[in-house]
């Protein structure tokens, strides 16, 4: 039972950290660059994306034995397109500001490689439960990644944060302490590339440092082992000499 829980948790967490679709696999970058102008838009995009990913993964996993090899890709596209259309309709009806802000990027979820990739690589080979956990992890991982980008872009580009503009069901609040120092470029596509590049560079730096640390530790361990072996050999030699003398 505990082992099962641990496996599920590992399956969930891999989408957030080790296999984060945006920062590790560098997938789904187009909407990540375009919808991260504000934190609210990023949350909305992440939410819609996660719904599509979960629903399509569940259905693909359910139908995995029925869908033959030849029609796998068209079948997945039809399934994903159906859920994207549904999400688009519901967003238009119940979250019209989010719908108009995200615009064409809701429709573009159909061609998002993360959704098709998870359907092909995971959901088509695993149980519904595992596919659901994987999709949830990937969805949350992607949402957190675009939220991180949006935090930087909105803060640097506007000098603070605004809420209630897209999610009109919450009261409109603006916190703009650095409005005078706002750097407009971060609200533009170029700013998205800059932020994305910096985050990737920082992550690569951390990863490299970890790898260097690991390599250094391994080297030390090897040296220690070699010294121990040397000592043991010397001791054995001394013992042999002593035995000979006796």
């Amino acid at each position, binding site marked *: 039972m505990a082992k099962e829980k641990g496996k599920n948790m590992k399956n969930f967490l891999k989408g957030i950290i080790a296999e984060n679709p945006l920062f590790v696999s560098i997938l789904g970058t187009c909407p990540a660059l*375009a*919808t991260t*102008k504000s934190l609210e838009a990023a949350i909305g995009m992440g939410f819609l994306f996660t719904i599509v990913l979960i629903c399509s993964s569940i259905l693909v996993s359910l*139908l995995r034995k*029925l*869908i*033959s090899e*030849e*029609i796998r890709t*068209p*079948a997945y596209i*039809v*399934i994903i*397109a*159906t859920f994207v*259309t*549904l999400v688009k*309709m*519901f967003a*238009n*009806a*119940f979250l*019209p500001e989010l719908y*108009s*802000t*995200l*615009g*064409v*990027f809701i429709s573009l979820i159909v061609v998002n490689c993360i959704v098709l990739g998870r359907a092909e690589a995971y959901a088509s080979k695993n149980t519904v439960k595992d596919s659901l956990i994987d999709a949830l992890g990937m969805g949350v991982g992607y949402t957190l990644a675009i939220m991180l980008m949006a935090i930087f872009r909105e803060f640097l580009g506007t000098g603070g944060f605004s809420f209630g503009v897209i999610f009109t069901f919450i009261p409109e609040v603006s916190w703009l302490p650095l409005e005078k120092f706002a750097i407009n470029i971060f609200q533009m596509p170029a700013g998205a590339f800059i932020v994305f590049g910096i985050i990737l560079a920082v992550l690569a730096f951390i990863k490299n440092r970890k790898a260097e640390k690991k390599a250094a530790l391994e080297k030390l361990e090897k040296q220690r082992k070699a010294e121990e072996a040397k000592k043991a050999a010397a001791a054995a030699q001394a013992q042999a000499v002593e035995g000979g003398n006796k």
Partner: protein
Amino acid sequence: MSNIKKYILTAVTLGLIAASGALLIAGANMITRERIAQNEKESVNKGIAKIFNDGQIGQDFEVDDEIKGYYPDVKYSKHVYEIVKSNGGDNPSTYLEGLAIQTTGSNNYGKVSLIIGFTKDCVYKGLSVISNEQSFASTLKKGYLDEIKDGDKTIDDVSVSCGATYGAKLVRAMVEEAKELTRILTMTDKGANNG
């Protein structure tokens, strides 16, 4: 024989998936249709209020065959709203302030839906974006076309480099059409009911 069976099974599976998807979409359409229409109406009203601050919506009508009879080249304009203003005081009568024209146009880059306002003398009042599927809601620079409000410039004089040239060209064409339609409607009975 087994190959035929396989082909049929494949086609049936794909057909069933597509049919289920279509049914789901039809169901969702039934649930959301009214709400979407209501949202669209609200955004049109908001757009009109943004252009004509103190005007009220009078009559409204579709751009139908009768109008097309006067203006056969009409392409983008879909709906016309008469904007009326009260004469003030105890006088309940109103006069026509201008027309707000709902237009929808598309090019290779997607669809744009606008409300364009003109006074009854065909002076540009402003435009409001109802929906923009061209790019990330940034086809138009804020205040685009504002310089023709004062009448110093005509639409032709306005630069189209406003963030997304293709979108701007489309918008300019829509504004030009709306202006012509306003001119025709204010000259005919249809747009001058409250004049």
